[in-house]
């Protein structure tokens, strides 16, 4: 008998059918994957199974408590581990909290599942892997029969991913039914027994994991062949240095770099491999002219002082694809046209005296929409209403327009569908072929291997190693990312 059975689930948001008639069953002790591109309806379905979202149609049978671990941790950072784990279910002694019992409960859970965390540690001081452990403990505290994991490895390093799934496999052995919502096919193949593929709100394929492979799953997710990336031309023999960084130190709220040296030539993609929080944001913000820094950044023949702001850098041909497209790259309430000219609004060809030249702006946006296949292809569409992939096409289109000398691409395909990602990656390769120097910061090694001519590993704000394209070594790079030498 299944512990969780969804039958004929339908969920609509206005005209959009997020989930259109899905059946799904989970058995005790089995790890099942739910895969699909962004916007396929996976998270909505998980939320319906959990009970956070009400379905419009269909029935849900739950034989036991359902736990849900969110992609973005739902933790109170300032509180301790036990306060988070037992939030809302605190043991009491009369009117008072029974702190001793709370600590004991967290320790007991840790013992039982092999998830050891100091109950009194403050969550914000914990590394990401341990925060996830707290998140998991909080759900396990409710003794769930079913555990739903929404993109659980999005923020983990390769080595942390392995140990995370070791925990999950152990939980399954204890009889918990587990559903992993993900888009990472390697993890699906390695750790699950069944795979459900969602596309446009429906489950379009079901496989026994043992009888399928990553390529077949990818085709099922996309609903066809994945478009090939653009061909890369040979690197020119004589290369001009575009960016020359020496002894760069910078700090942001999330990370820092301490004495970084990098050289980047025209027509080259340099990949920065590393786990999030090892200095990527500090490097990006220093180059963008947002974070203060020490050391030198030489761009072509010119030293860029820290006081040189973003506008002056954009004017020199430095373009950034920010990490967070919704808050750093776009104004969601605005149209495609208004977003397309952002950063160029002062250019003479896009203004008429004091006024924005609307016709020129629309024409400019139109070229981006066409070249990047933005859908719907309407320049007056509200950007906030576009899918993540189409939003990113607008951002990348804006950045690559006018052949910049240097592009910093920070997670350029984060959270977008495979088709859009392939298009963005192809356009980056084409820009490289045409002579643009590209610094690619990505947390996905696959992306770096697909695009980069050279890779450096960033660990704790320093370069931990460098590899040419013909010497890429996943094992070595993964080890350096985790800090071993």
């Amino acid at each position, binding site marked *: 008998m299944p512990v969780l059975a969804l039958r004929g689930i339908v969920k609509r948001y206005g005209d959009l059918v997020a989930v259109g008639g899905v059946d799904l069953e989970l058995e005790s002790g089995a790890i099942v994957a739910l895969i699909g591109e962004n916007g396929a309806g996976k998270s909505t379905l998980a939320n319906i199974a959990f009970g956070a979202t009400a379905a419009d149609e269909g029935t849900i049978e739950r034989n036991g408590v359902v736990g849900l671990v969110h992609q973005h941790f739902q933790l109170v950072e300032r509180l301790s581990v036990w306060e988070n784990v037992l939030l809302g279910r605190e043991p009491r002694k009369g009117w008072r909290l029974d702190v001793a019992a709370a600590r004991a409960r967290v320790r007991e859970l840790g013992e039982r599942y092999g998830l050891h965390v100091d109950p009194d540690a403050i969550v914000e001081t914990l590394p990401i892997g341990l925060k996830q452990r707290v998140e998991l403990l909080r759900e396990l505290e409710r003794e769930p029969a079913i555990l739903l994991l929404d993109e659980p490895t999005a923020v983990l390093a390769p080595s942390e991913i392995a140990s995370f799934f070791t925990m999950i496999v152990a939980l399954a052995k204890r009889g918990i039914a587990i559903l992993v919502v993900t888009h990472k096919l390697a993890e699906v193949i390695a750790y699950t027994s069944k795979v459900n593929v969602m596309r446009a709100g429906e489950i379009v394929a079901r496989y026994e994991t043992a009888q399928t492979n990553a390529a077949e799953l990818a085709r099922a997710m996309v609903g066809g062949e994945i478009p090939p990336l653009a061909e890369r031309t040979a690197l020119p023999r004589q290369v001009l240095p575009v960016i020359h960084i020496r002894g760069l130190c910078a700090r942001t709220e999330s990370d820092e770099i301490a004495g970084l040296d990098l050289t980047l030539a025209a027509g080259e993609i340099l990949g920065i491999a590393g786990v999030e929080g090892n200095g990527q944001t500090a490097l990006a913000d220093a180059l963008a002219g947002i974070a203060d820094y020490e050391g030198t950044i030489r761009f072509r023949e010119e030293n860029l002082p820290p006081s040189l702001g*973003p506008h002056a850098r954009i004017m020199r041909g430095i373009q950034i694809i920010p990490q967070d497209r919704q808050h*750093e*790259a*776009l*104004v*969601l309430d*605005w149209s495609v046209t208004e977003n397309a000219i952002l*950063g160029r609004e002062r250019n003479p060809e896009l203004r008429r005296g*004091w*006024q924005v030249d609307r016709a020129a702006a629309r024409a400019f946006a139109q070229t981006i929409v066409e070249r990047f296949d933005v859908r719907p292809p309407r320049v007056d569409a509200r950007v906030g209403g576009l899918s993540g992939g189409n939003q990113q096409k607008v951002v990348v289109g804006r950045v690559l327009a006018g052949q910049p000398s240097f592009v910093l691409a920070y997670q350029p395909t984060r959270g977008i569908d495979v088709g859009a990602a392939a298009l963005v990656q192809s356009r980056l390769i084409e820009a490289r072929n045409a002579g643009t120097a590209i610094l690619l910061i990505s947390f996905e090694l696959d992306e770096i291997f697909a695009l980069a001519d050279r890779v450096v590993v960033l660990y704790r704000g320093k370069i931990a190693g460098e590899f040419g394209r013909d010497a890429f070594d996943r094992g070595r790079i993964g080890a350096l990312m985790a800090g071993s030498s």
Partner: protein
Amino acid sequence: MKLSRGARDAAIAFGIIVVFGSLAMMLAGVNPIDGFTALMIGALGNVPETAETLVQTTSLLFPALGIAVAFRAGLFNIGAEGQLLIGGLLAGVIGERFIAPGIIAIPVLLLAGAVGGGFWGALAGWLRARFAANEVIATLMLNYVAIQVAAYAITGPLKSATGAGNETGELPPSAWLPTILPDTRLTIALVLALALALFLRWMLRSTVIGYQLRAVGDAPRTAQRAGIDLAKMRFWTMAFSGAIAGFGGATIVLGVLHRFNLALSPGYGFIGIAVALVGELDPLWVTVAAFVFGILQNGAIGMQAAANVPRDVVTAIEGLIILVLAGRRIITRSGAD
């Protein structure tokens, strides 16, 4: 049906006026229909009253427009009252001493009002840019400072030879704003306010600077990465916003009172917040909202006389609208920061 935020704000304001107004009237023992009828007649029942309603509309419109511009840049300027007062003070103390033909005196004094209000707004802008001081607190506090500065100025160093304790002497008639309706207080200030509303609408929608201002308000981190200098934009927007309120203060001095008085404003700078929000921060709709609030302001007097409803009912309604609309925004925003 899904309402835009602006339309929702307008609906909330209308609901408060009808529901809360009716309740208050019933408490005062008056049939709400009689009360609202008296209010409308008091505001629009004849030409002089309509003119006076338009005077109130004008006095509300300037600070409301200034507030709307600041809000569009993401700056919660709660200090229009103080900016208006400093603008009026400068126009009053200079105007009282400045003997010149109207064609010179009027523009100079209105400009002085804008400079005064602009300076007062820029103070808050500077505190925000330099020390990251929350502009809600800064502008609110500067309102109280403005009152004290004005009181000190007109009783101390700039004390008038003819004025009473809380006001300057009368301005020479050459500095008075020309009326556009004889025997009323309705002056060309209304025309100036309407022209300003049209200008601001054009500025926000069509110009490069308006585009940048909206970017800073709608998505500051995006704007920063696109090369817009946030500190500079915030500073000059606060100055501009204050200048508009200060200009409005000067029109009251030159057009309505013909002198500066500490009680120059019955809270135009505060009611202006509600006007700006109800008007969806769009200068055109802000103008319409100012007219609605002008009716409330002026109709309250007629309502008190004809239906015996205390005019404080209107003050309470206005306060409630500010509390609900502005409070909600400020709370939402501090959560988002």
